[in-house]
């Protein structure tokens, strides 16, 4: 009994040291929550079971596209990147990233390869083929933590993305942060407001009855606040996507997710 105060104090001390170290080494924001946690058990089961998750059809289509030879060079994705299970493992968790001075999203990079290496026309945004390839590549990173960090190359883009996130927009004059940061966990209409982490894209959204990209989702919110939507594939979209991925760093990817 006499030893108890000492060991109690020591455990508090150790706890403080541990907190301090984890704060320095792994500066992950506290209480991050995937909107998976807000879904009904039925919808969670739909995402978790590959036999129920409709997005797995797109993953299958994406795998077929991965091996499909294309263009005058007769090249498929696999000609350069070989087995996606190895070469694309962890890729989606690092995008958007700066490549040759340009901030590139995963969709943008797929089209870059398609136009460059395959000498073929770019896939339109939200086309079945682009979503399928994105889903197939993102699926290779399922369960891996989002690994977007701030660095010298992306700092300026990240700053712009953060600015957009905090800027009021539209006739309703609302910023992303007002809902998804200040009021996350409260209700809008009948539904809980999620923290807005892009950790499951592309998602099969039941409301859409199809697969969609994070940019489609962002345009949804923009039209919701009656703002002029950013164009698909625009630099503004990429910057906002970068900020959101950085904000969600450490959260495991669930791609392809299911959302109501």
């Amino acid at each position, binding site marked *: 009994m006499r030893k108890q105060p000492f060991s109690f104090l020591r455990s508090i001390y150790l706890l403080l040291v541990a907190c301090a170290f984890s704060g320095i080494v792994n500066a992950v924001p506290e209480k991050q929550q995937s909107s998976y946690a807000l879904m009904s058990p039925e919808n969670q089961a739909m995402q978790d079971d590959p*036999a*129920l998750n*409709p997005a*797995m*059809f797109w993953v*299958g*289509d994406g795998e077929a596209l991965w091996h499909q030879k294309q263009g005058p060079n007769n090249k498929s994705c696999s000609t350069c990147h070989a087995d996606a299970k190895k070469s694309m493992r962890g890729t989606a968790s690092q995008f958007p990233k700066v490549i040759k001075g340009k901030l590139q999203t995963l969709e943008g990079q797929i089209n870059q390869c398609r136009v460059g290496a395959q000498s073929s026309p770019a896939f339109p945004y939200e086309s079945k083929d682009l979503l399928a390839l994105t889903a197939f590549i993102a699926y290779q990173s399922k369960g891996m933590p989002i690994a977007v960090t701030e660095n010298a190359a992306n700092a300026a883009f990240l700053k712009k993305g953060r600015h957009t996130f905090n800027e009021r927009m539209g006739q309703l004059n609302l910023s992303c942060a007002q809902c998804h940061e200040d009021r996350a966990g409260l209700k809008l209409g009948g539904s809980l407001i999620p923290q807005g982490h892009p950790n499951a894209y592309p998602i099969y959204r*039941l409301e859409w*009855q*199809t697969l969609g990209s994070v940019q489609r989702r962002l345009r949804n919110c923009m039209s919701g606040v009656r703002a002029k939507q950013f164009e698909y594939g625009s630099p503004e979209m990429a910057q906002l996507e970068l900020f959101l991925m950085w904000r969600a760093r450490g959260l495991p990817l669930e791609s392809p997710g299911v959302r109501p």
Partner: protein
Amino acid sequence: MSKTSRTSITMPATAKKDSIIEIRAIAQHDMESGFRYTEGGKLIPRDIIRTFTCTYNNIEVFKADFYSGIGANPLIIFTTVAVESGTLQFKWIGDDGYEAVNQARITVS
């Protein structure tokens, strides 16, 4: 040329005789209702799956009619009795010559 798409079947590969087995059948399909318009105001023609049938060693054990109100990528969950070893065949038939077929084997002991 008829259209087809991906389908997926989930059911046990083995079962005890006369036990009830659960079968899940999902098909990739837009289920375009025929009530929607394009941005230009043109009606998008209906394109849906019309019927789904399951035969167990060539005997029909389950059939469903689909209508415009059914959502995209329809999932059907149903049960049947494992009477004998053999093959279950699943067939989806729809508008515009759509047809998809899938099979699964079961060993009954």
